[in-house]
């Protein structure tokens, strides 16, 4: 058991924070009353939330284990307003936390005694440059709204998180989000050309731009994935991707998860790069079918949803390769989606899988480790044993082509002692992932949620180097404190949650 070197700040009232989060949060020492008095001078009243009742809607993101009330929520519309808010926070020494749509899965947008700065009203598309396939957009633009805006030009924004109907470009930038099609098209960082950000001292910085290979350090790529700890992105220059001429979706139906995993390795060995390879296990299939009737078989151990795209000319050949690969892996049945309608339905089933699982149990907890793809069969088998050992149901629906697991632990928090089992199972999964040379998180981020595991992945020296970079962007530590990189010497055994009654 590691010792805490520093006494952590007391959790504020109305909060429910894991010990990990509590330990990593510095004490808030600034002048909260002063800041609250300043805010109406910066934004009109209808763009501020300050009453307790209103704040409850902003006490967490989609990972609900960590909750805390923000001090207030502000809704700026311009870079200048963001800058003014940040400067006020700096003056009063109060932390601030950028917030997009709040669909994050690692507690990144939880604002403990801090000002939440929402980008909800910064949702303009400033410039669509169709010939050059670039666009300047506000951070609050919803992922699919951007794709919809350029669809008529035959373009789309490639990173496609399953939450894309809600999550924002700013949130995607902060988390370096991925999605099913990142297997072929890359993650967010591969599609961000530049940005404007308000740094933690309120100054405005420009990074990157419309021209490629400009000399100098690539701060854009360092900012992407910094989980809101380097400042607030206020404008983002994204790359737009031409739509493929054609698409074919293959559904491989397997008796076991193990066979499906072998299917993945077989496909990747054949020298083609599908646009997506997603694995959905039986628990998830049943939940999805009960919810939206996507057309998945209920008795399959797992299915692979594989998409190939490109010019019409070789689509059938690519699909044939996939079918053949599935056959080598003992597939029970493999077929092509007949038409766009069936294809859309299958993908809807995949993208709504988390929602569907949410109907199986009142609570679920999603992990996000990435493993070398050759380890898929053994790791999935071990995850099943972990579920049995800790007496929890674990569903799997994930980006198999990238080796990006999403084991979803289903539970009911009202059941006595269940949280301990959920945490123990989670710990075992992460230990397993790290043991095979994997990564803690492929797309959901570290946030509060996995901060206690960072010292298992990185040495104190690695973390110190990361802290040095953060301190350049965020010298006072006021911008989204307590996330991503643990404070030196502040280690807690991951796992326990301090739960305080909400709204007592």
């Amino acid at each position, binding site marked *: 058991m590691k010792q805490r070197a520093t006494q952590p700040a007391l959790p504020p009232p109305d909060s429910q924070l894991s010990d990990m989060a509590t330990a990593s949060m510095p004490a808030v020492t600034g002048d909260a009353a002063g800041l609250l008095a300043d805010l109406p001078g910066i934004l009109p009243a209808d763009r501020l939330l300050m009453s307790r009742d209103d704040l409850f809607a902003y006490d967490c993101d989609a990972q609900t284990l960590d909750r805390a009330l923000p001090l207030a929520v502000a809704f700026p519309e311009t870079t200048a307003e963001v800058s003014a808010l940040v400067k006020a926070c700096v003056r009063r020494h109060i932390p601030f936390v950028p917030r997009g749509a709040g669909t994050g899965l690692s507690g990144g947008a939880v604002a403990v005694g801090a000002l939440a700065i929402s980008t909800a009203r910064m949702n303009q598309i400033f410039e669509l440059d169709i010939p050059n396939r670039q666009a300047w957009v506000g951070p609050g633009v919803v992922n699919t709204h951007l794709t919809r805006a350029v669809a008529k030009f035959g373009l789309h924004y490639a990173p496609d998180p399953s939450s894309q109907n809600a999550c924002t470009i700013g949130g995607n930038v902060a988390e370096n989000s991925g999605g099913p099609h990142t297997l072929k098209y890359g993650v967010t960082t591969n599609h961000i050309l530049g940005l404007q950000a308000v740094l933690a001292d309120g100054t405005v910085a420009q990074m990157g731009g*419309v021209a490629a290979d*400009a000399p100098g350090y690539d*701060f854009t790529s360092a900012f992407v994935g910094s989980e809101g700890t380097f400042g607030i992105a206020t404008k983002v220059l994204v790359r737009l991707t031409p739509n493929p001429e054609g698409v074919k979706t293959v559904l491989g139906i397997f008796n076991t998860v193990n066979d499906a995993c072998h299917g993945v390795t077989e496909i990747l060995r054949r020298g083609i790069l599908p646009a997506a390879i997603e694995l959905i296990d039986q628990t998830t299939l049943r939940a999805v079918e009960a919810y939206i009737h996507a057309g998945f078989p209920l008795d399959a151990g797992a299915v692979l949803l594989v998409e190939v795209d490109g010019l019409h000319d070789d689509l059938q050949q690519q699909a044939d390769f996939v079918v053949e690969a599935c056959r080598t892996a003992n597939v029970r049945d493999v077929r092509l989606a007949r038409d766009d309608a069936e294809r859309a339905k299958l993908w809807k089933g995949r993208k709504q899988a988390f929602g569907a699982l949410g109907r199986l149990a009142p609570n679920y907890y999603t992990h996000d480790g990435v493993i070398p*793809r050759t380890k898929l069969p053994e790791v999935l088998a071990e995850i099943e044993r972990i579920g049995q050992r800790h007496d929890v149901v674990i569903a799997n629906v994930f980006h198999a082509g990238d080796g990006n697991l999403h084991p979803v632990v289903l539970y009911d928090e009202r059941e006595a002692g269940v949280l301990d089992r959920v945490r123990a199972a989670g710990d075992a999964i992460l230990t397993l992932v790290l043991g095979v040379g994997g*990564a803690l998180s492929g797309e959901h981020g*570290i946030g509060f949620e996995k901060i206690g595991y960072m010292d298992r992945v*990185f040495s104190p020296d690695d973390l110190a180097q990361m802290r040095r970079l953060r301190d*350049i962007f965020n010298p006072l530590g006021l911008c989204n404190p307590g996330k991503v990189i643990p404070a030196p010497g502040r280690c807690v055994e991951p796992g326990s949650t301090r739960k305080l009654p909400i709204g007592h």
Partner: protein
Amino acid sequence: MTTPDTPPYAPASEAEVSALVRDAAARNRPLSTIGNGTKQHHGPAATGDMTVMTLSRLNQITADEPGDMVVSAQAGARLGDVQRLLAERGQCLPLDPPYENATVGGILATNSSGPRRLGYGTAKDMLLGLRVCGSDGIITRSGGRVVKNVTGYDLHKLHIGAFGSLGVVLEATFKVRPRPEVSAAFVVGCADLAAAHALLLDVWGSALRPVALEALAGGAVAHLRVTLPGLPDSPALAIVGYEGSRLAFERHQRDLDAVFARQQGHVILDGAPAGALWRAFRDGPSRDLVIARLGARPHDLPGLLGDAGAEGIVIQVGNGIARVSLAPTGPSVGATIRAWHQRAASKGGYAVVESAPLNAAARATLPWGFPGAALTAAVKASWDKLGIFNPGRMAI
């Protein structure tokens, strides 16, 4: 451990690099890091009295599990050697920068890329993780060996294009791809550069998915003809690189035939001849000329180039990059490039010198880059407190 005592030092292990850095730091003596030295004429020269350290002995390929489609190599490994290993198992690292002997570390430090970046991106799109020696001699790591990873900050991205000014890159991990069934190129003769440029912008906007679109004129064309004498005899060339399946290749052939009809003849290089073409690109950049790089939005570039009046020019159409070769003896090389920069900057672009002969007059005063913003100075001061890494080697 013994440190070789005759410079340049050639450490054979990470520990030896660390010891050299510690020693340099203790004596506050600048350290110039080089790989195989293929790009000494890129960027301003490192200045002052310093210790030279070559990483050519740190040249191992350290991890390769074919099924995982990643590869790790030490900084001094030659990209060519990495490619040969990957080719044996039907894979490749889709990076085709200049110079046969270029090392992994040098390619990252200069953010080098080649024609096929249009299809595959640049180093930042495939680099998964890095081990780096800092100015205190401490070795740190970021990223990892899996293809998707958001664990911690992407420190490794800052070392790309940093000319070794932020640390000594020791080992890098990349994501690799399956080798394509077909690698081919369509080479079209054009009356002039503007025609080649316009034609390739059209191809870029079409349904086709080329991996390279290069417009060339002047000495650049002459250079290609040396290795590939059968190329169309015309003042300018437009090249469409294709990689992928045979079936989609045939589609490219059909569609491009129509596009090329109005031009001055074309040839198709399929397989080995295409390999020869890409190698000619790799070996193309002249060490005897000043090479300026212009960057702009792809459709802005033709207007910005104007009448470049150069020895040779290579445009990466679709990426918005032009490389213009100029005689180093001209009195006003620097002024010319500064004027291009003025024009380009008004549209968000830039122009800089990328390389210049080491003995060129007034080399040091050429416009290599721009003074960086506050963040640049801050990160340099934080990661290289004493300023020992490659001082003067990057215009920041």
